[in-house]
């Protein structure tokens, strides 16, 4: 930091409001929030299905060469969906979306395109969305470990290049 530095302690109005009488116990608030999220389940599934169709379409349009605009579009769409699966009880799908986002980010950083790992991720996400067994237990863990390895291979290559 350079130049003049000033410090100020602002009024903490949120703290006062939170302490006012009334409100809810933590246990009730968390349960109500969870119940509200469950009400979004159909919308979440529809949103994820739409995201997958768009992502598959974008991946199919990609040629052999790196297309910065297309990869950015794909990254934007996939990363925006992170958080939606967990809201409808599909945590493993979120892990797969994060892995795919890491992969697309690494491809963007290196300005390279490799359709195979992207296709592997999209196929795995479709499988997990459609088959309950694929997002539970050891099956899901094996699938996610595999995706993480694929995604990390590009990160590792990046580190070696540095």
């Amino acid at each position, binding site marked *: *930091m*350079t*130049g*003049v*530095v*000033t*410090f*100020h*302690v*602002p*009024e*903490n*109005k*949120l*703290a006062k*409001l*939170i*302490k*006012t*009488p*009334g*409100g*809810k*116990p*933590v*246990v009730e*608030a*968390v*349960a*109500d*929030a*969870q*119940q*509200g*999220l469950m*009400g*979004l389940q159909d*919308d*979440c599934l529809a*949103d994820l299905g739409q995201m997958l169709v768009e992502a598959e379409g974008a991946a199919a349009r990609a040629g052999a060469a790196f297309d910065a605009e297309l990869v*950015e579009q794909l*990254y*934007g769409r996939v*990363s*925006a*969906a*992170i*958080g*939606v*699966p*967990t*809201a409808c009880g599909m*945590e493993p799908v*979120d892990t797969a979306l*994060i892995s795919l*986002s*890491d992969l697309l*980010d690494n491809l963007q*950083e290196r300005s390279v395109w490799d359709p195979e790992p992207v296709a592997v991720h999209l196929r795995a996400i479709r499988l997990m969305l459609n088959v309950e067994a694929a997002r539970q237990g050891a099956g899901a863990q094996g699938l996610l470990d595999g995706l993480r390895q694929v995604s990390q291979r590009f990160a590792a290559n990046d580190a070696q290049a540095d």
Partner: protein
Amino acid sequence: MGINPESRARFNLQRASILILDQNPMGMSILVQILTGFGAKTIHRCETVAEAEATVQKNEIDLMVVDSLGPGGAGYKFVHWLRRSKIQPNCFAPVLIIAGHTPQRAVAMARDCGAHFILAKPLTPIAVLERVLWISKEGRRFVECSTYVGPDRRFKNEGVPAGMEGRRRDDLPAEVGEATMPNMEQDVIDSMLKTRKVQL
């Protein structure tokens, strides 16, 4: 920081005015459901930075939950603008940033924008509640200088990083030097600890 999800401790968000900035309709719905579940009644939903700026200018906000808004980090830029806007008291309002994916290049933007805390998605109700309650309790001081405006980022105060000299006047050296004053007498120490009546 953990809160027991089974806790019967009460908190009240009914009178808090909350702004949510999220361009993704599903992301917005998830946040609204979580905050409504917590008892919030006044929620300003903004899908664009322009809407959020207009809302901040017209309403007093007690808490802002701001999405990073994609690879460009428009959400971080909004917080950066807010802190320098001089719109009181909103420019000091607690801001919780949420981010779906935080690549390395976005980390510095997130750190420097002036938010109170950054929470990575996927969100769970208990994680959001923990952060909101933590932000409300800590009452961090604000720092204003040419390169940063926002809550003090050195809230952990774990000392100056190893091998570096502190830049602040009150930074203590890593090595404890020789005593510069004589030790206190035991009587003096005892008198400091002695219980006394308080005169009101």
